[in-house]
């Protein structure tokens, strides 16, 4: 699903965020990506979301070489990826329901199919009863779960998460992880950037460790 081949990323300022990274993530595989802040986790996710491009090397997602994608093709590539953000990235001027429906509207899904899919996604994160609420009236944990519902509503093949349990208490974190494991069992590839060490210890998935832009550990 993901293939990094000798990927380096140098920002225009000269900062080398990633140095010669190589790894693959298979379909249905679930992995943690860890490292101190500044180790390159965010940059790696940005390369996968096509908000930054690799300076050297080759990034491939879903058998697509990312270096050649432009305009419309970038938009279409992003539709195959669900992203859960640490800061939720929800739109405050519309309801929870409308936020979760956005990927479906962008994908051009038949309007009659949208309510069913949105309700299913909200039900999965246990927030069906808040569908009409505005995101600002929700707690941090609830906002995070709306973000997850939005990330999975279009059934993406790859799910990326940036500190998804950062603002959640252990019980909620466990329920979020259960959702991820369920998705993984039906074939969704999942990469979770986190420095929540207890979480990593508890779930024993593959662990990729970054230090100063280098991949220094890859334990299964």
């Amino acid at each position: 699903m993901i293939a990094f081949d000798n990927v380096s990323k140098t920002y225009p300022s000269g900062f080398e965020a990633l140095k010669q990274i190589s790894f693959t993530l298979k379909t249905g595989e679930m992995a943690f990506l860890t490292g101190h802040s500044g180790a390159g986790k965010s940059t790696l996710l940005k390369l996968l979301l096509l908000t930054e491009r690799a300076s050297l090397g080759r990034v491939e997602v879903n058998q697509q070489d990312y270096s050649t994608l432009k305009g419309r093709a970038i938009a279409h590539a992003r539709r195959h990826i669900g992203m859960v953000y640490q800061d939720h990235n929800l739109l405050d001027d519309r309801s929870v329901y409308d936020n979760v429906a956005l990927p479906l509207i962008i994908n051009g899904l038949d309007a009659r199919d949208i309510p069913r899919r949105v309700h299913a996604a909200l039900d999965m994160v246990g927030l069906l009863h808040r569908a009409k609420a505005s995101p600002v009236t929700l707690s941090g944990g609830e906002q995070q779960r709306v973000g997850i519902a939005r990330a999975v509503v279009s059934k993406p093949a790859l799910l990326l998460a940036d500190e998804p349990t950062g603002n959640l208490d252990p019980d909620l974190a466990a329920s979020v992880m259960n959702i991820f494991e369920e998705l993984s069992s039906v074939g969704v590839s999942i990469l979770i950037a986190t420095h929540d060490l207890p979480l990593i210890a508890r779930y024993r998935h593959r662990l990729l460790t970054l230090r100063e832009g280098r991949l220094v550990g890859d334990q299964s």
Partner: protein
Amino acid sequence: MSGASKSRSTTASILAHWRAHHGREARDSLRRFASTPVATTMTLLVVALALAVPVSLYLLLGNAERLTSSWDGQAQISLYLRSDVAADKQAALQKELAARADVARAKLITPALALDEFRELSGYGEALNLLDSNPLPAVIVIQPADIQPGPVKKLRDTLAGLPEVEGADIDLAWVQRLAAILEVGQRFLLALAGALAATVLLVIGNTIRLGFESRKEEVQVLKLLGATDAFVRRPFLYSGLWIGLVGGLLACLAVAAFFFWLASPVSELARLYSSHFELSGLTALTILGLLAGSTLLGITGAWLAVSRHLKAMEP
């Protein structure tokens, strides 16, 4: 594995989706304007004024052209016939010329008629009585169908070549001056319309740009969710469309008010010159053209403003 874009998409459902999406965007952009009434009103007034000025001038120039076309009697050709052309031949020639497509009217002035006219106007009546024969030639006065300098001159040259014609004169200078004045007016109007169209484009572009800045986060989220540039651009294009359309409607109202205000002094002026001239204002065609033009300017301005920003967001 279930693909993200997999869905039962028939042509009908795509169309229905597209319609629903556009309808929502159109309504949303209107609601956004309602939430910033002062800024929106100011933009609309600038657009309306910038459109009303060239449209008013265009209509005034049209009126001037209509007025001067009623003076086309000035652009006439006098054909002096040979003295050996008999009276019945003169009348036949007049009929023949009047039937030509490039001749509006042809009027025969026989030597006797010309002498009478001359006697009346010149005050040399007594002296003329001393002449034992009429020295004046028969004249056919031609009003060309086309009063542009080129065609008039061409017609003169053609008619001068007729065997019965001794000479042909036109007051070319007058025709040329008239055409030149109108040409200057048209050029001036064109330049002014161009400058004001650019103003409308910039004003709408700037308004849309400000709207875009305030919604940058939303645009970023949409792009990360896989929205194409076309999808992101759409609500802004609708904003441009509404500004252009409503600005155009306001401009129509302003022009109509201006012409209403002008109509009675103009007809009073015309009455003093014993003319039936009446100011003609907006026609349905002008209104349609104005609205189509202003809407197009609005959409183009929005497109330019948004595309530049979207380009900057590319990785």
